[in-house]
């Protein structure tokens, strides 16, 4: 492998994104303008925020398939509550509480009941969507009512000429990075993800840390949900049963956060998000239909995983029991 052996997946993906950028810049007039680049980042900033949420869980060696379902159900509920006359702050608080409670439930199932994360959160996602559809909101698409008009700024406004969602994406990234790097819980999270048994022996409270990671992902997911609703003035709860959550996983895995846990950081999420953003933007400019776009996205994900497997082969040391 020589030189290549020291190249991480993150660097490969970043290189790929730059290469694509260059190609598009040469081939597509109007790609390399400030406006288009801002638009590019804006269009993937929600995906990026969700990527941070998923990234934290994956670093802790879990996975949260209920992320998108929870975000759409809780925000749709908030909007319906405002519509029937509840003040916005109160509705937001209720939605947040609901989100966090579901996060705790997820964490409890994984940490204490010791269910595999993939099944616990998959079931939770279905449960939340069904529950929401039946009890919390009447229609699939819930509109932002007049009383919640201020929210729209979060999704459609601009600050210093830059769309607000980009700032929010940046803020979530910085918070995530600070958490992972400088807080005790953040370091515990990585330790638990890397090797839960060793972490436990050294005295790290493994189970509470696992609960924490799901609570964090619910919290960040809730923020992403609010931005989603604000950006299109409605919440489409069908997202819950779409493949959106796999796009989020794609961003995380593509960026180089290994599904076996303990590896990677927020930077990986950013890199993965940017590559997807560049791809989608370029393909939309070229007027490629989204079905074909999906094919291309899938091929790129597979390629990234293949390259990762070749460069970082699994061996007795890295291969862990229960890998997904």
């Amino acid at each position, binding site marked *: 492998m020589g030189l290549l052996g020291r190249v991480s997946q993150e660097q490969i993906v970043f290189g790929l994104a730059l290469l694509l950028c260059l190609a598009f810049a040469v081939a597509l007039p109007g790609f390399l303008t400030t406006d288009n680049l801002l638009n590019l980042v804006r269009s993937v900033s929600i995906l990026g925020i969700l990527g941070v949420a998923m990234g934290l869980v994956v670093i802790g060696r879990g996975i949260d398939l209920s992320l998108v379902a929870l975000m759409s159900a809780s925000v749709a509920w908030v909007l319906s509550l405002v519509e029937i006359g509840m003040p916005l702050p109160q509705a937001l608080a209720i939605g947040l509480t609901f989100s966090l409670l579901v996060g705790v439930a997820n964490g409890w199932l994984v940490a204490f009941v010791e269910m595999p994360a993939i099944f616990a959160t998959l079931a939770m996602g279905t449960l939340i969507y069904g529950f929401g559809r039946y009890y919390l909101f009447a*229609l699939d698409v819930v509109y932002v009512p007049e009383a919640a008009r201020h929210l729209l700024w979060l999704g459609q406004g601009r600050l210093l000429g830059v769309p607000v969602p980009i700032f929010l994406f940046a803020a979530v990234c910085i918070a995530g990075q600070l958490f992972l790097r400088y807080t005790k819980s953040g370091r515990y999270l990585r330790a638990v993800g890397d090797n839960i048994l060793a972490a436990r022996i050294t005295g790290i409270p493994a189970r509470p840390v696992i609960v924490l990671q799901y609570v964090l992902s619910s919290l960040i997911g809730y923020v992403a949900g609010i931005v989603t609703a604000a950006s299109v003035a409605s919440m489409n709860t069908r997202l819950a049963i779409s493949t959106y959550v796999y796009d989020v996983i794609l961003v995380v895995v593509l960026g180089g956060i290994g599904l076996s846990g303990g590896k990677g950081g927020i930077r990986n999420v950013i890199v993965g998000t940017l590559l997807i953003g560049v791809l989608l933007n370029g393909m*939309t400019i070229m*007027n490629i239909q989204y079905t074909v776009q999906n094919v291309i996205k899938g091929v790129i994900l597979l390629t990234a995983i293949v390259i990762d497997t070749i460069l970082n082969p699994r061996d007795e040391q890295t291969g862990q029991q229960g890998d997904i």
Partner: protein
Amino acid sequence: MRMISKGIMAMTLALLSGSAFAQGIDDPTRAPYYESFKGKRVAYVPVAMGFDLTEGWAAGLKEALEPLGVKFEIRDPNWSTDAGAQAITSLISEKPDVIVVHNPDVQSYARLLKKAEEAGIYVVQVNMRSSYSTDVFVGVDYVGMGEQIANRLVDRCSPEKGGSGKIAIVQGVLTAAASIYQMQGINNVLSKHPEMQLVSDQAADWDSSKAKNITATVIQQHPDICGIAGFWDVMDAGTAAAIKESGRNIYLLTQGGGNRMACDGLANGTYSEVVIYFVPGQARDMATMIKHLLQLKQPAGTTKTTLFTPLAFVTKDNMTAASCWDLPAKN
């Protein structure tokens, strides 16, 4: 005085006896009319419940059929074509009298609908048709609608009228009847107008976030774009958000079943114009056709009737309180 009151009494008696005589005659169609609906079952398979169109149709059908003693049931596949196909398959063996189908695309249910008719079940298709024609289709003439929409855009945007001639389309799902036939209509018109330039015709999967991202990029690439036609008002909330963010004056022509939200969108400037196919009207058309079939009692598949829904091009200026309808409150 007495004479007069006696006269009145006599007249009243005469009238009463007359009405007694009228009671002896029955409306000859009344009994068979009610008889033909007793114990009948109508099953409804939309692509999903939970949005204005399908909820509106269900409410309308229920209101029209249940008082007659028809059992109305909903099988909700919730956007899954597989689940929908399964629902129809099991319905074929359960043998309701009528199946009302809302097709997710032109192919998926075609063979099943044929089977259902062969099993003696009347099949009514609504709004999005399958490639297989059944007893009844109630819905929009999408080719015609596409032509009208394209003409409208030519009107607004052709260089002769001072526009840039650049237009874009935001489709739903490429394989849905609403998209295929409508694009056909749009292309029919645009082929006669070489001065018009269709810069993008992406599909947004009926999703407002995708619509927003696509539109934002399209506007970015073609800042002088003049008009955008979207294929569904619910999805085009996203298209509208992108237009609003760009700060440009772009004519957004969308379409939908005329739920209250469409008129709200016109009033607050989200949409420039909405083509409305009035959902309660469609529900009534379906109910009428179902009543017709159940009374005629011919074998399923004998006749093929198409009822195209009249279209209303509604703008802020010609909008009235009756242009849109409200969903009945959930009980």
